[in-house]
């Protein structure tokens, strides 16, 4: 469900003065005094964990999942690609805790490696899409004029596609491989990022201190880098964490429909797609990959929501 809505920015009030302590990546006066535009703030993390315990736990789960994916080759009990036809399609047992698939590969190992692939695809595509969108948004807001006008039309066009349709179209057109799946999902994230970051950047552009900087003769690049960009980090981070869940579901949907990463790569979506090809699917091949998806999406969603509430509650209702 989370994958389809979002990007409909409709601020209920005109934007306020942005809070300068509103980000774990410190911006504003302290940062400039320290000589760098960015600085990680540990006390902020502690305050976050105390005020939002549930999202904090979710954040830890999310981190654990990422860790699981990174350590997959060492953590998984068996080779996820090694077939054993004698032991095919077995329900969970002591040898195979989550059972085996159609050619006898261990499902638990495949789910662990699936975490690696799903995380990799989700993180890469979200980073790629949101960053491209953010850079475009800042440039669009700053330079304005025809560039902005045309750019916003392109964003409209991209937003007119239901995300799964756009991803499916691109993934089929470009052929099935890891990078085309990443590109397809990233393409669906670009437009959402642009909308939100652009309105934030526009708001900052009108600030008095930016006008002052301009009056003092700062070059465009300085203004973008030192003033506008830091204020956009908050929404950018929120966008990324809330988009991760959507990206995981998109990748799973692509895999389920058969347009995802080609075999033998284990992704949660591929496993569901394989399982669903007959009238009565094997229950362990349906339940476990799906549960993995739910846990991952829950964790990322909860963490993202908490982060958004902490950083900037005005973003609520923008990207689910």
């Amino acid at each position, binding site marked *: 469900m989370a994958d389809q809505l979002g990007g409909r920015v409709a601020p209920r009030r005109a934007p306020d003065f942005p809070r300068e302590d509103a980000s774990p990546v410190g911006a504003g006066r302290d940062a400039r005094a320290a000589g760098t535009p960015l600085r990680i703030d540990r006390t902020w993390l502690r305050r976050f964990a105390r005020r939002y315990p*549930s999202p904090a736990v979710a954040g830890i789960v999310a981190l654990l999942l990422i860790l699981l994916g990174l350590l997959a080759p060492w953590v998984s009990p068996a080779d996820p*690609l*090694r*077939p054993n*036809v*004698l032991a*095919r*399609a*077995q*329900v969970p047992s002591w040898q195979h805790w989550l059972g085996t698939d*159609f*050619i006898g590969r261990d499902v638990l190992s495949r789910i662990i490696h699936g975490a690696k692939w799903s995380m990799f695809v989700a993180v890469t595509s979200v980073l790629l899409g949101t960053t491209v969108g953010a850079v475009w948004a800042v440039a669009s807001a700053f330079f304005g004029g025809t560039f902005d006008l045309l750019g916003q039309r392109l964003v409209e066009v991209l937003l007119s596609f239901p995300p799964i349709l756009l991803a499916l179209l691109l993934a089929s057109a470009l052929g*099935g491989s890891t990078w085309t799946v990443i590109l397809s999902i990233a393409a669906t994230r670009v437009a959402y990022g642009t909308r939100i970051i652009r309105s934030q950047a526009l708001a900052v552009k009108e600030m008095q201190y930016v006008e002052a900087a301009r009056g003092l003769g700062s070059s465009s690049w300085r203004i973008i880098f030192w003033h506008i960009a830091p204020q956009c980090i908050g929404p950018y981070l929120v966008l990324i964490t809330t988009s991760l869940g959507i990206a995981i579901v998109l990748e799973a949907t692509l895999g389920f429909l*058969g347009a995802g990463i*080609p*075999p*033998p790569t284990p992704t949660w979506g591929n496993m569901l797609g*394989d399982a*669903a*090809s*007959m*009238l*009565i*699917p*094997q*229950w362990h091949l349906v*339940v476990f990959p799906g*549960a993995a998806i739910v846990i991952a999406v829950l964790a990322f969603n909860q963490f993202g929501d908490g982060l958004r509430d902490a950083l900037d509650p005005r973003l609520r209702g923008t990207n689910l």
Partner: protein
Amino acid sequence: MHRWLSGIAGLVGVVVFLLTIAYGPAGSPTPTALVGMSPAAAQTPTAAPGEPFYLKAIDHDKAKRGGTLRLAAHGPPSMFDIYASGTIANVGAQAPMYDLLVRMDPRDPKLPIIPSLATSWTISADGMTYTFQLRKGVKFHDGTDFTADDVKATFDRIVFPPPGLISLRILPIKETGARDRYTVVMKLSEPRDSYTFLASLAGGWNVITSKKALDKYKGDLRQVDNFPGTGPFMYKTRTTESWEMVRNPNYWNPHVPYVDRIIQVWLKAWTPELAAALLGNQVDWAMWLDPSAYQKVKATANMSGLIWQAPNLAAWIGFNNEREPFNNVRVRRALHLALDQDAIGKIVQQFDPTVQLTDHLPPPYGKGYEDLIKEHPYAAATREKAIAEAKRLMADAGYANGISKTFNFVVRESPQNRQLAAYAQAEWERLLGVKTQLEVVQVSTMVDRQVAGTFDIISHAACLGGADLSATIRSCYSINKATGKKADSNFTNFRNSEFDKVLDRFSVEVDLQRKIQLGRQLNQILNAEVPATALLSSGRAYGWHNYVKGLPTVGGNSDYNTYQWDFVWLDK
């Protein structure tokens, strides 16, 4: 505290729900014994003189009349020129509206030839000329009379398609002539044993249509969904979901058909939707069931199922015999031995219950499953020997440490191909150090790749059979005589001049014993040369409700030959 409790309670509830889902059906069904096409002698009908042969249902005296038969059909067809088609989507859907010249008896698993529009025939001494006597008083659905001219026009369209049109049938006919109004003479271009020739005439695509229609459309029937036929059913309506036909009240066979209407519903093979439609009683009969559906049908009290093996040639993973290192027979043999061939059959059986390990050619030319299984028993000891042999062969060929290049393995999209290719890939890398990269493509891309030869390994390009086995073998493993290039379905680029010579003799051999000898020789050459591996036969898994009567319960329902539905009745 409450927050945690309710959250945990919710999660526990979900987990309990999921875990209480019962275990699914395990194991896979064993296919029934192979029912191949035996080259039996042709049967001249033994009806009393002056009384032509009429097909009737198996228990004709108890048969009820009336009702609507709903069939699951793999379709719809994309165009309606049945002569240009190679798919069941045409022959299944359109056949009830037409008749063949001669026909295979749909009630008998041995598929003897029975009269249809031809009432009797004689064969010349040298076996090169067939004279058919045609049924009198038959009319097409548009009212025109059926005569020898229509037969001639049809077979001219089939054997000598007009320029710009194609025909997929390979019939060894040099000339078809209408001697008089109800006599047709066919001259063969090369010798054939009589059963093979008549069986190929009885192929379901060789429906007889009128000369008038062929002239009117200049042989191009692609957009004509209703070109005239003489068949037991007539066109009623066609929608995006189904095709409806009604009983022909003026059919030349007064005993049939028994049902009033047939509705063919488009449902794709092996899909859950197909199974659901059959089990949910939205169709009465279906084929191409997936294993879990087939098991369910067999386990259901008032339903029946049967498995039939198609006469296709078995080769699911083909090597590009023209590319390094697959041009080296040692490498091909090694790759073949590294795979547990019976295991491969069992993998695919999870998706298609009809699949099993087979030889390159069907029995009697190759070995059947029971004999093969003794050679490749599914036991560790023999596997170890095979793997050792494979490693030795690779070392002989100079690849003791594997091959550094990663090969391109083109895989046709389907659930079974995905699993099969993943298994082959993993075993080849683990055992022989041969690395491949899987590329899953849609059917439409297969043609480009196969024709252009832009692959190292390919699966599953398919080599579909018909009544004339020699034509199939030629198409799969030999050259196109006219162009000298590889034949249409020779997706492995296999070329072997000794094989071609034996094949030439095999095609024209009319003596059964000698034919079997030659066929066995062909099989041995293929086994030695190993142009392809993963030798699996496949067929169809059928299911129907028991109120559909008249269907044979063993074999029968053969390859595209019997779908006129005139011998079936409903006990409702």
